[in-house]
């Protein structure tokens, strides 16, 4: 049985699907759902993602069939057809994508039968049954990608050795998704590859449509987008690799080596790029030499959030910044196989650190783990707790941080106490940004 969850950090498959579609250029999601679904999800998608806003077509602009009691009794397919027809007239997009909520699933509406009637029209109308009670936001992301790869990406028998696709950075759930995709794309460019990221700045639907000719799919995650990669391989014959999201020198150098190896890039070329990037990276970190050491800015850290970020932040803190990220709380709903893959991404630290990693979806559990990892003061005179400490997590950790009197940097979803525009934490440059943000926090708390 699935667990009840205290303050979940994700919404349903429908929510994940909407977030994913509205992050594609000029794509219009069409909700076939109760009237409230879109409104209910808007705050999670737009407000909790560093005030991401609704993109081109989000929030209350989302077309929705708004089924109510009568449709539930008599079936909603007629209403859906009418809604699609009129959406094509009113909404200005290049791709229309029907996604479904719980109610229409339960009454058995066949959305595929309805959308099939729009086949051959000037504009593509896709559909995915984003059965909300079957999974969360990440599942919705997978379903949308799978549908795009099956029904939108065109067959390309001839592959282009110089092009790759990259995904696994989930729009909105990764609050810094757009910046991160841009950083990863430009790194691969330096390695000699054109990259389709589908959701990044400057991407087009044409790129997505032609992505079948890529020679490799790079899934930057040990948890998300892997099922979609399998579909891509099955339909278009493009192999995939999974690689952890990289932040800072150690993470990004590993990333480049893994990707370089999979693409058959000459080792010397990869190492040369890494050396060049380090030459730009360390002179900035060098500036911290005085303040870091004069003021003893090493900290213990608790890292809370999704698998992508927790492993990336932990490696950055451990190996780039020389901190002690000793406790990691992974808050996703993961299967046993996923958990194993995720666990494997925490390790082989240059620092030799062996953090404690726990899986727990409940927001208020975090304080309990901190107390267990750094035992509580029982009134003894000589006592060593979570100090000096920092929490890298989400806005949900605000109370916990207050309780332990440590600073909190929100980096993982949800984030509603920072505004995020084009900031990126991925790559070498992202590592510097993270160092700026973390150490600014420590400086401000002096």
């Amino acid at each position, binding site marked *: 049985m699935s667990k009840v969850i205290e303050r979940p950090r994700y919404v349903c498959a429908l929510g994940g699907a909407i977030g994913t579609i509205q992050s594609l250029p000029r794509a219009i999601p069409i909700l076939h759902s109760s009237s*409230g679904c879109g409104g209910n999800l808007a705050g999670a998608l737009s407000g909790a993602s560093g005030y991401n806003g609704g993109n081109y077509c989000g929030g209350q602009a989302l077309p929705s069939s708004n089924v109510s009691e009568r449709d539930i009794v008599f079936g909603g397919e007629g209403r859906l057809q009418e809604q699609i027809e009129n959406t094509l007239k009113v909404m200005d997009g290049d791709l229309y994508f029907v996604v479904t909520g*719980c109610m229409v699933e339960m009454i058995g509406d066949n959305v595929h039968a309805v959308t099939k009637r729009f086949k051959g029209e000037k504009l593509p109308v896709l559909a995915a049954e984003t059965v909300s009670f079957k999974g969360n936001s990440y599942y919705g992301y997978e379903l949308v990608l799978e549908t795009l790869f099956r029904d939108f990406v065109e067959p390309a028998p001839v592959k282009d050795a110089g092009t790759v696709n990259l995904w696994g950075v989930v729009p909105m759930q990764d609050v810094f998704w757009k910046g991160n995709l841009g950083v990863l794309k430009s790194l691969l460019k330096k390695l000699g590859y054109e990259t389709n990221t589908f959701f990044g700045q400057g991407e087009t639907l044409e790129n997505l449509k032609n992505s079948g000719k890529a020679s490799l799919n790079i899934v930057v995650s040990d948890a998300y987008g892997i099922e979609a990669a399998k579909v891509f391989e099955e339909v278009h014959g493009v192999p995939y690799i999974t690689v952890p999201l990289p932040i800072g020198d150690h993470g990004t150098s590993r990333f480049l080596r893994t990707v370089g190896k999979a693409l058959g890039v000459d080792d010397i070329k990869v190492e040369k790029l890494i050396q060049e990037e380090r030459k730009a990276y360390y002179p900035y970190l060098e500036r911290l030499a005085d303040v870091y050491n004069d003021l003893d800015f090493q900290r213990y850290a608790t890292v809370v959030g999704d698998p992508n970020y927790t492993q990336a932040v932990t490696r950055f803190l451990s190996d780039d910044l020389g901190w002690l990220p000793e406790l990691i709380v992974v808050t996703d709903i993961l299967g046993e196989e996923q958990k194993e893959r995720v666990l494997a991404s925490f390790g082989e630290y240059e620092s030799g650190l062996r953090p404690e990693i726990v899986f727990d979806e409940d927001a208020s559990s975090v304080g309990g783990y901190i107390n267990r990892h750094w035992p509580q003061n029982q009134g003894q005179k000589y006592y060593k707790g979570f100090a000096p400490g920092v929490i890298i997590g989400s806005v949900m950790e605000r109370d916990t941080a207050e309780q332990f009197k440590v600073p909190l940097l929100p980096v993982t979803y949800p984030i509603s106490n920072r505004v995020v525009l084009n900031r990126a934490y991925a790559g070498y440059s992202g590592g510097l940004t993270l160092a700026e943000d973390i150490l600014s926090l420590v400086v401000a708390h002096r």
Partner: protein
Amino acid sequence: MDYIKHKVPPVREDRLMACQAYGGTCGDLSTESKKGCLYASKRTFSQTQGCQLNLSLGMISSMRDAVMVIHSPIGCGGNLIQNAGINKVFQKLRQESAVGLRWINTNLSEVDVISGGEAKLRQAVLKAEREFRPSAILVFNSCVPALIGDDIDGILDDLQKQVSAKIVPIHCEGFKTKIQATAYDSVYHGLIRNLVGEDNTATPAVIRTPEEEIEHQAKISKTVNLLNVGSMSRIDEEELVRLLKALDLNVRILPSYSHPDDFTYAHEAALNVSICATHDDYFVEHFKQMYGIPYVLRTIPIGIANTNKWLRDIASFFGIEEQTEKLIAAETAELKQAIEPFKAQFKGKTAFLTGGEVRILTTAELLHNLGFEILGLRGYHFDKYGEILLDEYLEDVPNSEKAIFNIGSGQVFEQANLLSKITPDLFVGHIGVNGSAAKQGYPIFPLFGQSDDYLGYKGVFEVATRVSRILKNASFNKNLGKNTRLPYRDSWYEQDPFTYIDDSASVAARIG
């Protein structure tokens, strides 16, 4: 009104024949509404909106020392995520030790949908009790448990014997109504049934001497329940309390940001004072019927005219007209002087407002008073309470019959089309639609705000200063207007904004 003995309240389509799709003028709406058939119209193209669950959480998730259980698949109540970690700030304005938002989602899976979600509901309620020991556990029921037929009330009755927190079931399935405001009825229904009144089996009845009893009754005779709303700020509350205290009344504030215990003695009051009929009619009618407590419901104290009306209604109940007229005279004289300089600035400017029927009509009156011409209004829905206010508005504001009136929650495509045609100098909007208008380049004044003052006399001055400030530099939105695009085809703006409102059913209802 006597729905309290039922498990769930009726929807507003049935109870108030509330309308959710209309396009015309203020004058036409006033006429059409009286024929009583507007409720039957619908849209053939629609955009998303909120639901009962959404609005129920908006109304009562702020309750202190409570935990919410959302019995649903994982996405329902997702709107709360943006308030996690933020909401506490506003709770603390009412109680320093407040802890902020806490909720548990039962995360219904496919297995639960087939075999029933009752076990998960038990698990969630017991977890809420065990982890947080709250005073109340508010259980919100979404679409799915309603369709699979979970016996929510049965389980919660049984659980109540095992937990010390008061359990409040709030039935708010989204698909049952398109009028989101039905949520208010669902919440009040749950609160009245489960929080109001002392539980004499748990606490011994208070024994008073005859003298103490007289004193107690005297206090009750001067006590009013001031019914606040989720969109009200603490400063708004303070302004209304200031005015009521000036009339020597004791004030108890309910239901937003309240503590569960605040409801226990809510029936020990002389009068219920509402600021919004949309929000409170269900509550005050039931309180009148169950406890004989009369109420004031007509209008919201926004703007001079409506604040005066609101105070006079209260005064006439307590028979303190003379004292109240003195207060009104002193307050309005002072205020009129203070807002005089703004009138020159606003003269000839035009405005468009959108939001709840009660709030927009009164705010429009306020802006009219400051010198604005009101070009149009968009109400979330429209019912008999709106009808009364609209008629008062038509009387108070000359030449207002020709102004546009559009009804629909969300439906920003209609708004975008309308704005492209009537181009006001100022857009006043409810949360959720302002971003859309901003991308059309309009200066925007938010219709309400958790950090600002809108109500009472002070509110008039505050609104004037903020509108004045916003009109001084609208560059941000102007830039957006020039450099962004709303997701509609150019051809849409050439059409009638009400193209997709289908009122054939209402015409049929009228003939039938």
